């Protein structure tokens, strides 16, 4: 009986001490983690080159691993889109173009101009709001060595946004 009472007293004391300690020290908040949902860098690349079954796994791939995981798939898609592909205006073979596109990151210059495509010697330095990235990509996919092949496929004839952009931050136009 006495032993039990002592045990209860001890337990109660420990509980009290713990309660007081917790109040004083404030137990650290549990760390909140977030897990990958969607991923994007260059316009339309994921959409066009990754087929439906692979889209979720592409979104979960880190860029460093994309080349080893998806190069074969990307090249197959490129040749499915354009079976006659030889090179393009940048002089890239199917393997080389695949190599450029498969690691889906957006290259940005921090010192010079920032445009998706300026010329065959100045490209992938950023992506501006008014850059016609679709035409840029269509020419590189379908335009052949000079950019002049397949004229029905190298422009979608939509050259500008439906609203003007602003010259000041945040640059995007107000909503409809």
């Amino acid at each position: 009986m006495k032993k039990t009472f002592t045990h209860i007293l001890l337990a109660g004391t420990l509980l009290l001490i713990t309660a007081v300690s917790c109040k004083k020290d404030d137990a650290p908040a549990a760390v909140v983690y977030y897990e990958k949902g969607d991923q994007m860098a260059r316009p339309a690349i994921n959409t066009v080159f990754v087929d439906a079954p692979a889209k979720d796994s592409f979104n979960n791939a880190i860029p460093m691993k994309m080349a080893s995981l998806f190069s074969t798939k990307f090249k197959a898609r490129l040749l499915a889109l354009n079976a006659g592909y030889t090179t393009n205006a940048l002089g890239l073979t199917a393997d080389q173009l695949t190599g450029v596109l498969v690691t889906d990151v957006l290259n940005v210059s921090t010192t010079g101009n920032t445009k998706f495509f300026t010329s065959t010697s100045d490209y992938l330095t950023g992506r501006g709001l008014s850059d016609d990235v679709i035409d840029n990509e269509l020419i590189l996919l379908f335009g052949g060595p000079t950019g002049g092949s397949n004229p029905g496929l190298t422009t979608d004839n939509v050259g500008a946004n439906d609203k003007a952009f602003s010259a000041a931050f945040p640059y995007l136009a107000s909503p409809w």
Partner: protein
Amino acid sequence: MKKTKILIVAAAALALGGSILWAADHIDAPAVTNQTTDITDVYAFKGADATSRVFVINTQGLLSPAASATAKFDANTLIELNIDNNNDNIEDLVIQAIYDGTNMKFYGPVAPSATGTKSKLEGAVTATVGITPYTASAPVIATGSNGMKVFAGPRDDPFFFDLDQFKKVVGGTASGFRNPGMDTFAGTNVMSVVVEVPVALLNASSGKISVWAETKKKI
């Protein structure tokens, strides 16, 4: 020439069938379709200030005006820009944006404690901005403690593409794009996060960085 064009289109149609349903990343992978994690576009450019760079991450595409009036950011969706500044395709810095029910809170640019698909909020908040209301006559803007300008709210979708015609080409019912083209995204909005970051904070080697955007769900 004509024969080659038809062959190309036919091959594309056979190979891709109806699987090309999206563009940019608009309405993309099955796991993110119609969710607040769906990224539509990423932009990176020099804006009005040559010593800064602007990064735009747009989500929740093809919002009609009616849907835009009630669209919200999601407090359980982290929007994250990954920045590789030493050319190894691994993020060296992140800029994070998380909605707290009232404001968009920004973290970074900051070196993440771990790289890869799982993230946690890194360090202290560096900027906070109210969400620009749909009917606002002027955007709500804030500047953070590190000089980073921030914005969050509905904007006109800046993407332009005749996606409808592209679907017909790939589906084999058209041999090329129409002229004039029609912008499938005209009249639609997105939820935008825009940051303008002093270049000094990006620590670029050789004047170049690579960026990619991720959205992540709280686990």
